[in-house]
């Protein structure tokens, strides 16, 4: 599945982008990622999704942790908080609890989210905090120049695994599904149009939405999750997949070798904000 099926002419593409209006969501700072990094596509898809949803820049807060992915807030023109390694979700939860009117988007990498920050994910998911968490998974620590991450495959050779990584990779989708995330989807940086549509749905979802974005690290991973390898491995979720069926979603999520793109699971249930409002009502009735 490749995204480029016909020639793209730069002039036409720029004209399209200008006319779409999504440039207002881009900051004046140029991204600092390596040429060819999949994260450029995520910035593009994010501005596209925000533009399609028509959300206001000033009502949006992007919270990030530490790592390549976490530089993201500097490249979009919203309010942003570049926080500490692994602490995207607690900070984002605080922002949302304090001001329900804000659109809160958490971004971070696989190390940030599943290594140091792994303890926060189940709690954000079970509380159903009304935020969107976009996890950029390149299976490596890029900003520290190439070490294994919790999603690195077994046998991967890096600076900290010179004799091959012996640990099993985590399965983030399976984790999020069992934690009780109310919206779980997967996208691929090599397919920006699909990515934009998934981001749009994730942001529109009322509750905790988790979008896992597969994205190659072109500088430090030449063998594992490359554009070539990912491009060959990915597939779409089966047409008959029922995204209300948690067990079906889990079965699909088990196939990490051939990751499927699309919406795995979705449910509507009260958010943390709803719960806090209920508590306010109960406290007043009890007085």
């Amino acid at each position, binding site marked *: 599945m490749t995204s480029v099926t016909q020639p793209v002419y730069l002039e036409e593409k720029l004209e399209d982008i200008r006319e779409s209006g999504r440039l207002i969501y881009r900051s004046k700072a140029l991204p600092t990622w390596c040429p060819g990094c999949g994260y450029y596509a995520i910035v593009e898809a994010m501005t596209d999704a925000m533009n399609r949803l028509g959300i206001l820049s000033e009502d949006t807060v992007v919270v990030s942790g530490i790592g390549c992915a976490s530089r993201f807030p*500097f490249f979009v023109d919203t309010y942003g908080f*570049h926080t500490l390694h692994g*602490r995207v979700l607690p900070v984002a939860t605080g922002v949302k609890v304090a001001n329900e009117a804000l659109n809160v988007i958490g971004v971070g990498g696989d190390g940030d989210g599943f290594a140091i920050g792994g303890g926060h994910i189940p709690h954000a998911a079970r509380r159903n905090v009304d935020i969107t968490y976009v996890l950029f998974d390149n299976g490596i620590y890029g900003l520290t120049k190439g070490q294994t991450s919790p999603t690195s495959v077994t046998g991967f050779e890096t600076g900290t695994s010179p004799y091959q990584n012996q640990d099993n990779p985590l399965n983030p989708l399976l984790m999020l599904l069992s934690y009780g995330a109310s919206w779980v989807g997967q996208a691929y940086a090599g397919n920006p149009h699909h990515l934009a549509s998934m981001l749009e749905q994730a942001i529109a979802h009322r509750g905790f939405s988790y979008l896992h974005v597969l994205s190659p690290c072109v500088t430090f991973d030449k063998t594992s999750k490359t554009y070539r390898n990912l491009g060959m491995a990915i597939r779409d979720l089966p047409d008959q997949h029922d995204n209300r069926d948690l067990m079906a979603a889990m079965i699909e999520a088990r196939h990490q070798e051939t990751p499927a793109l699309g919406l795995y699971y979705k449910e509507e249930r009260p958010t943390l904000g709803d719960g806090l409002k209920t508590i306010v009502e109960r406290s007043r009735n009890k007085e």
Partner: protein
Amino acid sequence: MNQQLPFSTDIQIAICGSAGDGTIATGDILKRAMARAGYNVIAFDLYPPEIRGFGKCIARTRITSEQVYALKPRSDVLISLNDAYAIPHVHEVDDFGAVIYDDTPIAAVQEGEHISGHLAPAHLPYAIPFREISERTTSGAKSRNMVAVGYLAGLYGIPREVFHDIIQSKFKTKPAALTESILTAFDAGFVEGVATFHLGFNVPSEAPQSDEKDDVIMMSGNDAVVRGCLDAGIKTFFGYPITPATSIMEKLAVEMPRQGNSMVQTEDEISAIAAAIGAGFTGTRSATATSGPGLALMTEMMGLATIAEVPVVVFVSQRGGPSTGMPTKTEQSDLNLAVYGATGDGQRIVLAPTNVEGCYWCAGKAFEMAERYQCPVIVLLDLYLSNRYEAVVLSRINPFDQDCNTGVPKHQTDKPYRRFEITDDWLSPRAIPGEKGLQHVITGLEHNEFGRPNDQADVHAQMSHKRHQKLHAALTHPDITICKRFGDTGQVQIGLLGWGSSFGEILEALFKAQGEGITCAAMKVVMLSPFPTSEVIAFMDDCDAVLVPELNYQGQFANLVGAMVGRSVHRFTRVIGTPLHVDDILVEVRRLCDDPTAPPTPVNPATTQEKLT
């Protein structure tokens, strides 16, 4: 209210029992009733870390007509609800003090196991059948404690109605039959007490009623923190349970929703402060509360709040350490962590109240300061202060400024917004999410005035300077005591320099030393960071010798003082898990008075005069 009392009263009552005897509950009723009757009250309970280990509980309550600042080392009355636990405390009953105990133990006891065999000749024994009276008047022996407190009230001739009010309000959510049974037990004890030969204390026959009792509130340090938070307009609180800070969170969980606000229990302390900072970023007043182990986890986030210039308030109630240490014992050993604990040069504001009323003020002012100076503020308490009860008088007018934010002026919104603009007072106008055209990113990376990551030498120097300079204004923040001098004016022989909960003991020692003819002054330092250096130097100039008593091993405050003023002080440190003993401080004052060059006494529990454990 104090001036209306016809007699000078100073009585300390200790109730000792096993967990499950209702010891702490009895002390609670006693202190609330005496505060309602118009007395000054200071109370502090000791209890074991186990909920049901049948560990020892002691509730001490000092009831006075004059203002006092600490418990006395010796009590006037000891009530034993469990002889095995109470026997080691008989020695702390003052001469001509009373010991009240059950004369009919459940089973035959070996010689020496009954408390009556341990009384000193100068003690007055009051043996009454608590258990029998409880069983006769109620359905069982569980109300022994109520018989005992009723007896005490009768003995002292305190009107029973005051106690009835307190008991009824304490048990108002319980079935009426239970409250009735408790009142019956209390009255049965009361009748016994009235019929007994009275104690010869100087007690008014009729306790004066306060005219404005609504202003006098019996509260603990943690209660006062909660009240301060609410009056300062707290909007969000995120916390993780930890002794001795948990009750702040529990009380806020009750009160905050009533005001339409949010208390969220997070998965750990890192998450708690992270969420509080996230909420602070949106412009609302936000806080968390923890103890030393939690603060250790929060230090990285404190640094983020410092560099990203986000307001957040952190209440820290210290306990014995290091590590898990002694969760239910008091200590003042997290000063270093509070003042210095951060990566890089992460200076923040640290306030350490010295009494319950101070907890209220510091809590409220912490929100003003965090918002005004755009930084984290730590309010440093300890178990002794968190759990100690005092009758405090609170103003009915909310004293706290509800908005101290430096916002972005409207006419500036068309220019590119500099979140970290260098200004004359080093405070940058702060925009919050939702404000149009002022979108910006804040970061834990060093940054320029726009907030863009930048590690140039001049930028880092300028921003480091800004973050430190802006805090100096906190030393002149309106309506808060930064430091205060007590005792003799002018040149004195001994200066006592103190901080936090132990300042009450320091003041009591000061008054005793003055009584012995030693000229003596004391200074409490409430703001530990930034440090009121010039005030402390001025105080030290007036003292022939300066003694710094505190409850930790190294003398962390003495180190801080030494570093800030560049002079040496005499340390007096103890790590006993309980408040400092007034008489121990006094001994040190006398010693220093005789020989100002005397070396410090070693920090060894064996050297303390009497152990109050």
